């Protein structure tokens, strides 16, 4: 019971894979230390710190990080040496040029994604270390740059070697496993959405889990494409899969809400036709979700999904044939439900197609890759520029403090500041993560001090030290391998082993230990304060996505200037690029995610309406009505970004436009069983969908997705 409660409060992953990960990381640290000793490098702790900073549970991630880190380190060390050679005796140009280089690295790094960014940030960091530490003793600068570079490369080599040699876990394999799991979960989620009796809390909780799973899948995808060249070629298809997942999520939610409303209304013949086909579809999805071998036979699953889609289409035709005989609005809602259920199945089979294309290369020739989606950088230009300015400001402030106080340990404060600066890149809430990192660094340093005083004096020989370090580092490794404690574990392990006093000859110097530890933590803390004073987050990018969607993409879909699938593709691509930066535990950001997905589907429906109005079979009254609605609605959407404080009333106007159009369409006389009547019902379904957005995604429409 106590153990269970403890596990709940501090859920460390104690599975055998994680234990292996913890042991192999500790062994890598010890081996790196041994090599650094053997080469008689100064400050061998940098090699072990590198091991921990690089510790990743998958092999692909370690390899990718390693390569970029080596390149970044070499580049940074050379730039640091050049700056030193030019200005070793002139503090102002020295700090100025290092700050400029740092700004450049942050500016480029913030706009890149993943490890390219990592390489650039490290180039800035290494230049800063070599430049500033070397300035204290310019005659030793070359040695310092060489030792630092060699230590970092030793660390990289050791961690990469163990993660590739000892029970390697490749991201590609994990991706495949996760994909199969995710597909099953998604099918289950779809089935739940289609069941009328699901309580909202259950649905919302499941939806949240699904979004998290998709975000995790996206992160793993970015690791995996670094791992193997054949996967890199498939990145476009994998990205498409993530977008398809997001679409399925959005559709399922709308479907759930619509079904929920539908229950209350009295439309017996519609319900009688709708219910069995929805139940059959839900049962199929449940069957697919339970089928662990679904991915071994994608053809069969796709055929089943196809059959279910034709059943839905048949039901839609039957419903459309009822036009004129049953009330219009419930009929339109029924058609909408069937249409969205069909879209959901289509999304799932698209995932199957993409899976076949990307992870089963022997089938690849059969499928043509999708057109390249627009590339959206991780951070906008302006955001990257702000990040660069902020890092320069932080560095200059700390250097001024260092110079003004003639602080002997000022360098440690600057390096602590630089470490925290790295967390700030593309982190919307660096404070929270940074503080945890600071706290666990402090705990690691205290533990190192205790070990230095109480344990190290009793240890003789490298073998005993190695054994002690491996055992002492196990908890840190277990933490580093548990996703929610990864950074805490890295900080704890890294600073424990690097501060423990690992110079070639054991000379415990308590005074310099305490001084350097305090200044390091002080630098980290000051950096956190600065980061909070100068927050840079994705809010501006969110605003831009919103503005582009409202002012140009949706009106273009309504007017038929661009095909609705292109519009949907662009909106979802913008969202997918922002995905890693959204914290979905904050209401505003969750509203943004939902709203954007809803807007994508709105684009789809507006495009459908636009094509429908040109259909020759549609009555001229209905056609004129839809054309009027589309023109007015497009203009109203366009005016939203400029509405300012009046946005709520503008959204209300747009909502009444949709409702007026829907009401007007419902009053048009219908000839039972005619094609025109069926088309009217189809238009009604699209309008119903757009009208629903104003209830479900109101927060998004009134642009309130900023502060939670």
């Amino acid at each position, binding site marked *: 019971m106590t153990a269970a409660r403890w596990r709940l409060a501090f859920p460390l992953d104690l599975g055998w894979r994680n234990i292996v990960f913890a042991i192999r990381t500790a062994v890598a640290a010890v081996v790196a230390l041994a090599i650094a000793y053997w080469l008689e490098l100064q400050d061998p702790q940098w090699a072990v710190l590198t091991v921990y900073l690089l510790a990743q549970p998958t092999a692909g991630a370690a390899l990718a990080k390693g390569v970029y880190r080596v390149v970044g380190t070499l580049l940074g060390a050379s730039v640091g040496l050049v700056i030193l050679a030019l200005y070793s005796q002139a503090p102002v140009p020295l700090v100025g040029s290092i700050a400029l280089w740092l700004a450049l690295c942050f500016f480029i790094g913030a706009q890149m994604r993943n490890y390219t960014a990592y390489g650039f940030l490290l180039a800035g960091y290494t230049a800063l270390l070599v430049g500033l530490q070397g300035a204290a003793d310019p005659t030793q600068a070359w040695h310092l740059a060489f030792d630092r570079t060699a230590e970092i490369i030793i660390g990289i080599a050791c961690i990469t070697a163990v993660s590739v040699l000892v029970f390697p876990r490749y991201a590609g394999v994990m991706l495949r496993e996760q994909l199969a799991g995710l597909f099953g979960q998604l099918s289950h989620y779809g089935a739940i959405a289609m069941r009328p009796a699901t309580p909202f809390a259950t649905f919302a909780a499941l939806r949240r889990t699904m979004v998290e799973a998709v975000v995790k899948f996206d992160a793993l995808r970015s690791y995996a494409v670094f791992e193997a060249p054949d996967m890199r070629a498939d990145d476009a298809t994998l990205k498409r899969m993530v977008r398809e997942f997001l679409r399925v999520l959005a559709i399922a939610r709308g479907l759930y809400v619509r079904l929920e409303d539908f229950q209350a209304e009295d439309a017996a013949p519609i319900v009688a036709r709708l219910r069995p086909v929805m139940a059959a579809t839900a049962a199929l999805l449940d069957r697919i979700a339970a089928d662990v071998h679904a991915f071994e036979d994608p053809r069969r699953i796709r055929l089943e999904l196809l059959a279910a889609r034709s059943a839905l289409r048949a039901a839609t035709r039957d419903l459309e044939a009822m036009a004129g005989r049953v009330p219009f609005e419930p009929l339109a809602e029924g058609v909408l439900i069937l249409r969205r259920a069909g879209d959901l199945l289509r999304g799932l089979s698209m995932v199957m197609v993409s899976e076949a294309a990307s992870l089963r290369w022997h089938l690849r020739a059969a499928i043509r890759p999708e057109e390249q989606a627009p590339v959206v950088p991780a951070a906008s230009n302006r955001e990257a520029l702000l990040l660069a300015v902020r890092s320069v400001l932080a560095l200059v402030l700390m250097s001024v403090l260092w110079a003004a106080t003639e602080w002997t340990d000022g360098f440690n404060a600057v390096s602590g500041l630089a470490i925290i600066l790295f967390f700030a890149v593309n982190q919307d809430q660096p404070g929270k993560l940074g503080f945890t990192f600071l706290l666990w660094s402090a705990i690691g340093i205290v533990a190192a001090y205790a070990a230095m005083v109480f344990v190290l004096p009793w240890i003789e020989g490298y073998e005993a030290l190695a054994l002690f370090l491996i055992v002492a580092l196990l908890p840190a490794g277990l933490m580093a391998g548990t996703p929610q404690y990864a950074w805490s574990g890295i900080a704890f392990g890294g600073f424990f082993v690097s501060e423990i006093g690992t110079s070639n000859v054991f000379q415990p110097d*308590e*005074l310099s230990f*305490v001084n350097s530890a305090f200044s390091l933590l002080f630098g980290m803390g000051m950096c956190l*304060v600065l980061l*909070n*004073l100068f*927050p840079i987050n994705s809010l501006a990018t969110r605003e831009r996505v919103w503005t582009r969607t409202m002012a140009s993409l949706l009106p273009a879909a309504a007017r038929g200037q661009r095909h609705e699938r292109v519009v949907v593709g662009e909106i979802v691509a913008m969202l997918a690029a922002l995905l890693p930066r959204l914290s979905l535990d904050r209401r505003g950001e969750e509203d943004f995610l939902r709203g954007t997905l809803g807007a994508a589907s709105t684009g789809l429906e507006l495009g459908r309406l636009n094509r429908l109005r040109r259909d020759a079979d549609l009555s001229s009254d209905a056609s004129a009505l839809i054309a009027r609605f589309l023109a007015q609605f497009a203009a109203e959407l366009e005016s939203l970004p400029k509405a300012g404080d009046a946005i709520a009333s503008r959204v209300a106007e747009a909502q009444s436009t949709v409702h007026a159009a829907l009401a007007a369409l419902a009053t048009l006389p219908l000839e039972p069983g005619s094609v025109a009547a069926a088309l009217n019902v189809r238009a009604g379904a699209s309008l119903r969908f757009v009208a629903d957005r104003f209830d479900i995604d109101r927060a998004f429409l009134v642009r309130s997705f900023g502060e939670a």
Partner: protein
Amino acid sequence: MPTSGLTLYAPELFGFYLPPVLLWALIALVPFLILRWLLARTGFYRFVWHRPLFDVALYVILFGGVIFGVPAVLGGAGWL
């Protein structure tokens, strides 16, 4: 004596002398945390444009208050 008001107290921790400013900074943290909690409870932060900036300013004022104010209240000339 001109130095009578200058009582620099350097706290000691496991045999290390810590800078006096660290002690003042820690003392200032107590009223700061209480005030911040109170202001958050009363909804005062709704009127604040930039909360972290306000917090830093508040802390700096309290820090200054501790350095200059407390000795004045206690009847000394101050720590500095």
